[in-house]
């Protein structure tokens, strides 16, 4: 190794290190580049399509659109959804199939969106809630239809 090469090596090495230090120095002095957020205080608005959990939409009259066709149950890869049906008497005196319980196991759900796609009446949708932690696993099993709710008029 010649002496010139030796000095050149040192020069290049020091130069590359100083360039690196310039970069970190830039971020040290430019605080506007900071991108982190104070999480619980500042919450980011999540995207509209963000898949947090499955919800059954109810309107103001406490009516939903689920006919109990179990398309979502069949589409689900993990057995997350269980639909318990019952037979209701319509005013005309006919028996009609309706949901008794829409059981949703959040602990099994992988948010794959296949149930939403499968639903023929757009009864279920994905909600943006993401803070699901609870102390007991049993709390993650939810019944999605609200008590006393019934199917919307005209949805078959």
């Amino acid at each position: 190794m010649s002496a010139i090469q030796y000095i050149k090596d040192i020069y290049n090495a020091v130069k590359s290190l100083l360039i690196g230090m310039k970069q970190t120095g830039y971020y040290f002095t430019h605080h506007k580049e900071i991108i982190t957020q104070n999480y619980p205080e500042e919450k980011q608005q999540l995207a509209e399509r963000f898949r947090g959990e499955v919800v059954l939409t109810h309107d103001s009259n406490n009516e939903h659109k689920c006919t109990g066709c179990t398309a979502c149950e069949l589409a689900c890869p993990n057995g997350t959804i269980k639909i318990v049906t019952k037979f209701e008497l319509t005013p005309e005196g006919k028996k009609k199939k309706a949901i008794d319980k829409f059981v949703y196991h959040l602990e099994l759900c992988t948010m794959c969106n296949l149930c939403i796609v499968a639903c023929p009446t757009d009864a279920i949708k994905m909600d943006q809630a993401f803070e699901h932690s609870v102390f007991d696993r049993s709390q993650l099993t939810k019944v999605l239809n609200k008590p006393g709710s019934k199917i919307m008029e005209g949805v078959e």
Partner: protein
Amino acid sequence: MWSLGNIAHSIDVWLNQTFSPALALLIEFVIVGTMAISLFAVLGLVLVFMERKVSAYMQIRVGPNRVGPKGMFQTFADTIKLLLKEGLTPTGSDKFLFNLAPVIAIISAMLLLAPIAFAKDFQMWDLNIGVLYVSAISSVAVISILMAGWSSNNKYSLLGAMRSGAQIVSYELSAGLSILAIIVLVGSLKMTDIVASQETGWWLFKGHIPALIAFVIFIIAATAETNRAPFDLAEAESELTAGFHTEYSGMRFALFFLAEYVNIFIVCAIGATLFLGGWMPFHIGQWTAFNHVMDFIPSSLWFFGKTFFLIFLIMWFRWTFPRLRVDQLLNLEWKYLLPISMFNLLLATAIAILGWHF
């Protein structure tokens, strides 16, 4: 004028008037000891906080900001956590050495505080071989690391300790040689003499090229001796999980942690004393007005300002550079730093003999 030196002197006078000389000396020992320990604690808290903030800003983060205003008391909270944590001793470890190692680390760091001149006339022990004392005691630290690595009965710890041993022993050479360059220029090992010799200008500026080279080498060697990135091979968390302190937890880990930060403070203080004039204000030749203004800033501020500047520099290195490999580390020392610093010493000697420095 109000200064730390004056306060210390008046306390000394008052103690000697009130008590017998032996008792006064004893009380002074106690006072100095307490101050050293509290300085330790404060330094630990401040430096850890500083490191976390510096790293955060370099990494486009905010850093600790929850405990106290701007997260000031984060390190307090951490310390309390560490104090309350159980200190585990692994089975199969050498219990005596395992418990002794962090104590040695902290004691060697503490002893190093003695010759440092914190302000004008404010020093624990102005011994005539101050610099030699520092380099001698700082070598003791490596024993604690070797002890910790060996006694943990863990292969990661052992590897970390062995790396650290090789590293500190080699880098001691170039650190010593770069210090020697300044010693040659000053002509004394005494800290007060070194500081006094810089009244007309700091060695970094008036020592020509040798002082500059010595300064760069000293900073590199200091980083290596304190096991800081890019020379943190003893810890190297991506390779050896935590290196020599893998098995340590609770307060014993905290002692290592504290010793690391105090060591950084000490090497930076030495660097500031040797190259940046210690507590000496910034003076420019014949500009008497300017020099006078500079004199108004307390000497302790000058000292801590310079030291913290160097500490920031070392932190900047850590958050910018990747780690070296073990053979590259030794190559850097034996192929580059040592020959350069030897040549540099020769140059410094020539300048000192010819009297070319200011």
